[in-house]
């Protein structure tokens, strides 16, 4: 057993869901108990997907265990095929169903559903989300591209893009950016998979000259298979950062047999000049701690050190599968790689490294917030705010621009905060003056009360003027959430003043609440 408070990755069947949800016409029947449907909300809430993910759960309950959960599974498959009419069915088990004796692959074979069925074996007690996604994608590619003949006379500039998926960090915009860049460089992108692909698209994978693996965590095993099966070469340089994008374009152009002239698209690179501008001088040797999935963490460390002039003081990943790559990268910066999926280890490593900027996932954002260190998010897992409405790729030249802004922005704020600290006795910058650039009124230091659990609560400003509150009413007011407490106080005092009530009691508080409720 392993004690876990927060996990960086979900179970492998969530990875399989991500592949099913990425594609069109693929439905996933998951043998799972009631409650496992929680995973739907990752798609509908975090990614704000306007449709339910294409997943049917058997949702067996305790009473089904005595009977036949196998029958529940088979009827779920039949119903799903009839209702959704998919082109292919993925079938598999979640962690609980893995413990039962039912065999989804065997059971699915006995179904007469007239569509291809791809069974998945995802060992829930050994593997995790990204592995599950990679394995599912590989199984699909094998099933639908596997039996194909490679056509003669393939255009050398044709390629596929492998790896982008649903719930992937900025995958949507990365695909747009890279496709645009490739088109400008005379490369013909045939199939992007799994994001937006159909099973017919997968069958067309061998029709291109080579593959581009944008996200090795998910696309690598499929790319290796296509290389072995069809001799398709692949590029797996990840074009995050100016340098990496240049290398990537050079490699792609070489594979496509294009001239070795300068790649096109660099006109949009503003990040290089911004980093050179004198304004950026104060970034020099800022200590930065990098943690995330292997691809984003390695890319971020290289950008930090070579393109922004930071000092990398820590580099790590939660993906044990890519530990070797991260260790190699860490050597470049003279740090020891942190390979751990325990957020407490990461927190300790951050404390030990004393960074001035943390680049990480949602977890590191919270750790950094607690430690009051500036932070930017570079990798999944992420919250809803990192599935933004605006165009914000990480890859390519525009991606580098986005990265420059999003990493430097918290530091700018950090610098301003520092200046405010230095001048805190100044008449305009003292503790009680509100900082005009902050979104919310800055909490005055003396009113911040540390409470259990490390939450910071801000008590509303002290009673104003001569309006008297009974101690009971004052206590009751404290139970109002701090962000509306000020309003509750003002409304109640206004109400009391109008009605000539004095002192304000608990009754008055709620009378006013009822009066103003609208």
């Amino acid at each position, binding site marked *: *057993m*392993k*004690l*876990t*408070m*927060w*996990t960086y*990755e*979900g*179970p492998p*069947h*969530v990875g399989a869901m991500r592949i099913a949800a990425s594609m069109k016409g693929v439905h996933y029947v998951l043998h799972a*108990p*009631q*409650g*496992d*449907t*929680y*995973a*739907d*909300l*990752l798609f*509908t*809430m975090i990614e704000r*997907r*306007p*449709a*339910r993910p294409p997943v049917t*759960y*058997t*949702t*067996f*309950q*305790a009473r089904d265990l005595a009977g036949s959960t196998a029958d529940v599974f088979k009827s*779920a498959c039949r*119903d799903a095929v009839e*209702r959704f009419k998919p082109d292919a069915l993925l079938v598999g088990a*979640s*962690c*609980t169903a893995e*413990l039962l004796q039912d065999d989804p692959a065997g059971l699915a074979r006995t179904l007469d559903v007239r569509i291809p069925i791809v069974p998945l074996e995802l*060992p829930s*007690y*050994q593997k*995790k989300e990204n592995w599950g996604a990679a394995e599912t994608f590989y199984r699909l590619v094998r099933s639908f591209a596997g039996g194909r003949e490679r056509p003669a006379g393939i255009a050398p500039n044709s390629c596929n893009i492998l790896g982008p998926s649903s719930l992937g960090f900025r995958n949507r915009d990365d695909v747009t950016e890279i496709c645009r860049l490739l088109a400008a460089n005379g490369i013909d992108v045939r199939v992007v998979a799994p994001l937006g692909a159909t099973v017919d698209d997968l069958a067309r994978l061998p029709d291109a000259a080579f593959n581009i693996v944008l996200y090795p965590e998910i696309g690598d095993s499929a790319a290796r298979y296509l290389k072995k099966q069809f001799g398709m070469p692949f590029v797996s340089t990840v074009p995050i950062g100016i340098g990496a994008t240049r290398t990537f374009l050079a490699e792609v152009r070489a594979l496509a047999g294009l001239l070795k002239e300068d790649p096109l698209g660099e006109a949009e690179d503003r990040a290089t000049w911004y980093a050179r501008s004198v304004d950026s001088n104060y970034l020099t040797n800022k200590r930065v701690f990098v943690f995330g999935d292997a691809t984003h963490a390695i890319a971020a460390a290289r950008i930090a050190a070579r393109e922004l002039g930071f000092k990398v003081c820590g580099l790590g990943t939660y993906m044990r599968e890519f530990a070797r790559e991260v260790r190699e990268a860490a050597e470049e910066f003279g740090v020891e790689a942190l390979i751990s999926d325990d957020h407490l280890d990461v927190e300790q490593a951050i404390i030990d490294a004393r960074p001035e900027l943390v680049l990480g996932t*949602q977890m590191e954002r919270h750790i950094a917030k*607690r430690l009051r260190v500036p932070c930017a998010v570079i990798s999944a897992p992420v*919250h809803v705010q990192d599935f933004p409405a605006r165009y914000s790729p990480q890859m390519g030249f525009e991606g580098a621009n986005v990265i420059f802004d999003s990493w430097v922005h918290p530091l700018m704020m950090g610098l301003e905060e520092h200046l405010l600290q230095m001048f805190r006795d100044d008449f305009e910058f003292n503790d009680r003056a509100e900082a005009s650039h902050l979104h919310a009124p800055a909490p005055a230091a003396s009113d911040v009360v540390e409470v*259990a*659990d*490390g939450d910071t609560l801000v008590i509303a400003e002290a009673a104003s003027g001569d309006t008297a509150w009974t101690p009971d009413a004052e206590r*009751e007011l404290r*139970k109002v959430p701090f962000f509306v407490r000020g309003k509750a106080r003002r409304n109640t005092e206004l109400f009391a003043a109008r009605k000539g009530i004095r002192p304000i009691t*608990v009754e008055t508080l*709620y009378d006013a*609440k*009822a*009066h103003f*409720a*609208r």
Partner: protein
Amino acid sequence: MNQPLACAPSATIRQRGQHEVFCGLTSIIWLHRKVQDAFFLVVGSRTCAHLIQSAAGVMIFSEPRFATAIMEERDLAGMVDMHDELDREVARLLERRPDIRMLVLVGSCPSEVIKFDLARAAERLDRRYGSKPRVLCYSGSGIETTFTQGEDNFLAALVRDQARHGSVDRLAKLVVAGSIADVVEDQFARLLDELGLEDVVFLPGRSSERLPKIDATTRFILAQPYLGATAAALEGLGAARINALFPLGEEGTTAWLKAIADSFGVSPARFATVTEAPRRRAREATAHYRPVIDGKRVFLFPDSQLEPSLARYLNRELDAEIIEVGSPYLHREHVAGELAMLPPGVSISEGQDVEVQIDRCRAARPDLVVCGMGLANPFEAEGIVTKWSIEFAFTPIQGYEQAGDLAELFARPLTRKAMIAGERSGNRRVAS
């Protein structure tokens, strides 16, 4: 597979199929905020950990008071003794968090399927630590429990624990069972005090302190409708249940308090005096939102078992028309009063076949759908206005002073729709 079942006020649709609901583990999210010195340790898989984390959303604390002991391959292969493994992880946890006074082991689907004996583990650990902390256990597995039923099992475990180790010096005359927000608890405590009641105990309490003695002289009332096992455990100690509506809205809260008052022989005059002002406030606050909801057709998907009470409130105090009331489980005896107050013709459904229910919902073209987060955005994308049901479990909605807030929860999506579309909310039509 839908079979009508005879039941007042109308036939119940019994459903079997895919259930789009949370499991009982989710209840940890509010229980750990309520009981401030308890730690909830799930014995389960990575899925369990991921579920709680996903459902808890932004509630990432520096040190959450819940965690998962994730079972690994070697645990399942019998290469290690799982009881030894659990003891080791618990020891590590308590070393880290010496402030924990109550450790709650929570069973999950995987731990139950392999028949890991959590009760035995809890007893052993309780003996080992000599009640510092005390160790309890309950099941929050999806195969056994739906969403709020996790709390039911937890409270039943607290009651059983009192039967075994309970104090005898203090007696509870009235137990108010069901987790409610602290501010609501304080309001109820004040009202009950004004009614002249003494020795009132709220279950769960805000700390891990053991319950006072419960015996045949104790009466209890449910503040939440999902407490079948808790009620059975209290009755097992001889306590008598006070039957009432649930305290949602002015009417529900009054009926709830009146049931208590009558049970303890409080004079009608005193009851009227105590409740008059808050009743007026609740009616006034609710009235602000009635124009938005009046006549709107509402469809409720199953989630928390609060649905019958919410439907009763929507219909009687906000004049909404109710199309279907879904509930994951109907404890008929406890919600009989609620169901009896629904107008004839309302469909009641117990359990779920989510695809079939979505078909029914689309066909009914409701003005507002109360549903879970996995369904809400897809419905919105179809032009159907929704209200996330999970908020009813986290927001203070019980009692007089929250009646307006409860109405606002329903009114907000309708108001928003009208604001954004620049039209009156009544003009909305379902996209076909």
